[in-house]
């Protein structure tokens, strides 16, 4: 019984610390159009990230805003700042990735 508990605890610990499975690597893609930044979050096989947390940082790494993806993996917001932006998708369970949106792209999409 003790051994089983130990094994279960070990499995829990390794599950918590395991890196993201590559086969399920999450991606975020963003583009700017008409003053709005559109983001799409997806896995390589095309399935969408639902209820993922999107965080937007400026070039000083200050958090500008945060939001949640819809069932289509989408989240959009008005341009918060004309700057080099880093947009992070956190799909939970260690599935995390970032997308860099250049200041020139933000400027062009105003």
């Amino acid at each position, binding site marked *: 019984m003790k051994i089983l508990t130990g094994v279960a605890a070990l499995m829990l610990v390794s599950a918590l610390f395991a890196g993201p499975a590559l086969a399920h690597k999450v*991606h975020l*893609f963003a*583009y700017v159009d008409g003053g709005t930044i559109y983001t*799409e979050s*997806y896995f*390589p*096989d*095309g399935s969408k990230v639902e209820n993922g947390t999107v965080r937007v940082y400026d070039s000083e790494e200050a958090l500008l805003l945060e939001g949640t993806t819809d069932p289509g993996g989408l989240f959009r917001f008005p341009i918060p700042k004309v700057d080099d932006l880093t947009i992070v998708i956190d799909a939970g369970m260690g599935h995390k*990735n970032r997308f*860099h949106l250049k200041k020139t792209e933000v400027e062009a999409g105003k």
Partner: protein
Amino acid sequence: MRRGSSILFTAAAALMLLLAPPASAHFGAVIPSDDIVTQDDAKTLNIEIQFLHPLEQHLMEMAKPKQFGVMHNDQKTDLLATLQEAKAKGHGPTEELTFWTAEYPIRRPGDYTFFIEPTPYWEPAEDLYIVHYTKVCVNALGLEEGWDQPVGLETEILPMARPYGLWTGNLFTGQVLLKGKPVPNAEVEIEYLNASPGNISVVVAPADPYVTQVVKADANGVFSYAMPKAGWWGFSALNEADWTIDHEGEKKNVEIGAVFWVHTRDMK
């Protein structure tokens, strides 16, 4: 006597060389500057479109293609107007040969399958026209969707192995389609593109059969080939069209090829 036979031998060899069919195969080629576009890469692809002998690096004159497009997210976009004419040195000192280039900006994630339908090429040596429907697939921004969809060309190779992210030595598997239907026992010719970017050791074939590899598809038109070197590999399945083209008042047969290009990288 000895001298005589040696001259005879030389003459016979020269004659054989003249009469022998070319050892190398013709290939349509659509080669993009990148096959996997990540967010830190240049988002504009430079695409070269040629008609050539890939291993022997012989280019042929190429008229402007009839069709050039891309399929992304199940949608086809006509890119014919983006083609630019380019010239390369030919065999003689003054000969110039035409090929085509295009720039394409990647804007969205997913797979991009570029395809051409060339203008029929008259090959007097084989007394026929050649039309190679040629495709290549570029992956963008981590979304691996679209590569297994047919474009709907008269004949095409449908990848059955994801056609990017391939290591040297991997098998490439594809299915030969003619009018959308598998071609049982189709013959597939394979050549290495010696002009592949990054190829530091040009391959010299030790004998003719090494130039063009040949495999036959199974009853479902499915073939496989393991690629032994890093760079671009062309796969070409040839069939005879059920239509002809007039050449100086005579009906001539048309060889239609389904060509697909994939890129491999050394595992290191």
